[in-house]
């Protein structure tokens, strides 16, 4: 071997040795890549509150067996590039042990493979589209898939008005989650004997829905089912009502946030939304969460906050279990990431969502689901009233 070859081999060996010898830093860093800006920030900001709440609450109760942990936030905004950048920064620069995020399924399909290749466990807090856990071995989610949650809304609408026969379906075609959700809605509607009078598309960036609303009115339907995000979906609800649509409206998970209230204002009233979380969930974990959340924010915690809280909680509890076997400070970072992923999947967790666990692919097993109807108090404030 030439001298240059020896030097190259030595440098490579040194780099490999230094990389593999990288110890875990304390406090333990958990990455949080959520939408703090863009249209998606309406959802992401609730998640940030939930994650911060978990950080404060769990650290105050001893963190990871007495060792505090620290959340490192990166803005994943509402697009794929921002999510990819956030993931890369968290993995390579911040050296986090795992990531809670991103906000949208659309972003997860782009960013999760980065974590998968780096063998960093990811917990999706609101990625409910079909196929998310199947992205890879290191990808799991605490958000129940839309296929499980969404059908409850249609069943509830038929309970409220058994005469419903014709439905209009509208969805944001540029959002993977909405496309996935509308598939479930459409299948369920047909299975329940409803006729889909019209199926229309829009973009999450749209503001003018006159064309779609006009078509809905001319279809003479008695149920409208919307899959979109809070900004566009809320605006669509507002324009439907302003133009005179009087029937029931079902909103998908993207509208499942109190941030939709100032968007559709008084026109939000009556919108039905299926949910994977209820403040009324009776578990002790949830009741503590709700009590503290109410004390701080003077309102009930929304689903997105609860799911982000659960994401952080699962990471922390899995780390606790690992720490009990071998102190976290003695682990190499890469090894800890692998062990954390394994531990997340085998654990059982009592979260504000109720008891949850994961199957071997990373899909959440959740027991309780809910359907709520929006009741507006005034132009900007309202609440989700849970239906039986």
């Amino acid at each position, binding site marked *: 071997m030439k001298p240059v070859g020896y030097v190259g081999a030595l440098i490579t060996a040194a780099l490999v040795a230094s990389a593999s010898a990288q110890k875990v830093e304390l406090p333990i860093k958990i990455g949080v890549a959520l939408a*703090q*800006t*863009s*249209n998606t*920030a*309406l959802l992401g*900001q609730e998640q940030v509150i939930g994650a911060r709440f978990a950080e404060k609450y769990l650290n105050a109760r001893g963190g990871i067996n007495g060792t505090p942990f620290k959340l490192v936030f990166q803005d994943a905004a509402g697009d794929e590039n921002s999510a990819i950048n956030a993931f890369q920064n968290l993995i390579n620069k911040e050296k986090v042990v795992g990531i809670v995020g991103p906000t949208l399924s659309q972003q997860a399909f782009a960013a999760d493979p980065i974590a998968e290749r780096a063998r960093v466990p990811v917990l999706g807090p609101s990625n409910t589209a079909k196929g998310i856990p199947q992205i890879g071995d290191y990808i799991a989610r605490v958000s129940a898939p839309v296929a499980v949650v969404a059908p409850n809304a249609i069943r509830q609408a038929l309970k409220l008005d058994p005469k419903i026969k014709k439905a209009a379906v509208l969805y944001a*075609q*540029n959002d993977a989650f909405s496309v996935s959700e509308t598939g479930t809605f459409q299948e369920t509607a047909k299975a329940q004997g409803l006729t889909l009078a*019209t*199926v*229309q*598309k*829009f*973009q999450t*960036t*749209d*503001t*003018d*829905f*006159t*064309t*779609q609303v*006009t*078509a809905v*009115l*001319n279809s003479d339907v008695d149920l409208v089912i919307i899959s979109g995000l*809070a*900004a566009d979906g*809320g*605006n669509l609800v*507002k*324009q439907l009502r*302003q*133009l*005179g649509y009087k029937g029931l409206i079902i909103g998908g998970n993207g509208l499942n946030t109190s*941030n939709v209230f*100032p*968007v*559709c*204002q*008084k*026109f939000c009233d009556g919108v039905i939304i299926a949910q994977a979380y209820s403040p009324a969930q009776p578990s002790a974990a949830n009741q503590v969460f709700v009590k503290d959340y109410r004390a701080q924010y003077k309102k009930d915690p929304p689903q997105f906050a609860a799911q982000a809280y659960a994401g952080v909680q699962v990471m922390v509890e899995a780390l606790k279990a690992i720490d009990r076997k071998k102190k976290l400070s003695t682990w190499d970072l890469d090894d800890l990431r692998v062990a954390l992923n394994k531990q997340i999947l085998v654990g059982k967790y009592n979260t504000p969502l109720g008891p949850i666990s994961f199957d071997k692919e990373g899909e959440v097993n959740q027991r309780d689901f809910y359907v709520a109807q929006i009741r507006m108090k005034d*132009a900007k404030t309202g609440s989700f009233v849970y239906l039986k």
Partner: protein
Amino acid sequence: MEFSQLVQNTMNGLAIGSVYAIFALGYTLVFSILGIINFAHGAVFTLGAYFTYTLVVGQFENNGLLKGINLFPDGSPFSGSALSFGLATLIGAVLAGLVAVLIERLAFRPMRARGADPLLALVSSLGVALVLVNLIQLLVGAEIYNFPSNAYGEVKPALAFQIGDKTVVIRTVQIIIFLVSLVMLAILGYVIGRTKIGKALRAVAENPGTASLLGISVDRFILITFFLSGFLGGLAGTLVGTAFGVAGPYFGVTYGLKGLAVIVLGGLGSIPGAVLGGLVIGLAEAFVPADYSAYKDAVAFALLFVILLVRPQGLLGKAVIQKV
């Protein structure tokens, strides 16, 4: 297509097309004077909507740095009294005009003074646009803002009438948009065509050097042009915001691109062209079948592409003749 649908689509198209027209006029005015596109016009559009919203509501909301600041605090002469929608719209548009003036001073005049290539001024305006959008995000947050539903009075939410067995529905705000746009176009037409200011503006647009020799302060009239441009952009922002909500700091980006399509379609620098272009694109979008309405932006730009192939100077633009 049924007749009722034809009427409905025409109404929808005229309403949105008229906003495109007054927004695009702002582009056209600056282009006709300086020969460059002001890419910050979309950001001014956004600002106009935010200005009006804040004046109507009386305070800053959501998650920006200005959150919670009350414009009319207790003890002030206007305590607790948010402005009426009409007055707030007017002040909002004036403020947007002043921002446009500031943009001219910061992004365009220094370039002009140095005799820089127009391309540099264009890039400079693009930079200003990005700064403004990010500043909005920092100050007032990323959330959508919706005007209170009674912002422009407790009027009936929509007009509805039957054609055959179908109902044609027109939102009140669509009528307001259309009427305000018509009034603005008439006023602008009068100012440009009949007043001394308009004559001076046209002289500067025709030949700044000669206009200067005639005693016209070119810099002053460029500022006036920017003010008018910003006023129209801000007004368009308010009108769209009223109809559909102010969709965050990036609200003006799509409209900025569409405004470009409108002026290129109508003919660069042509005021009647901007109006015609706005209405054509508005109507083209409105006639995209409902099942494909998610593609209406693509349809608008495809139309632009086709027309440019047939008539490169735009609908009402003049072909450039080079003498050799």
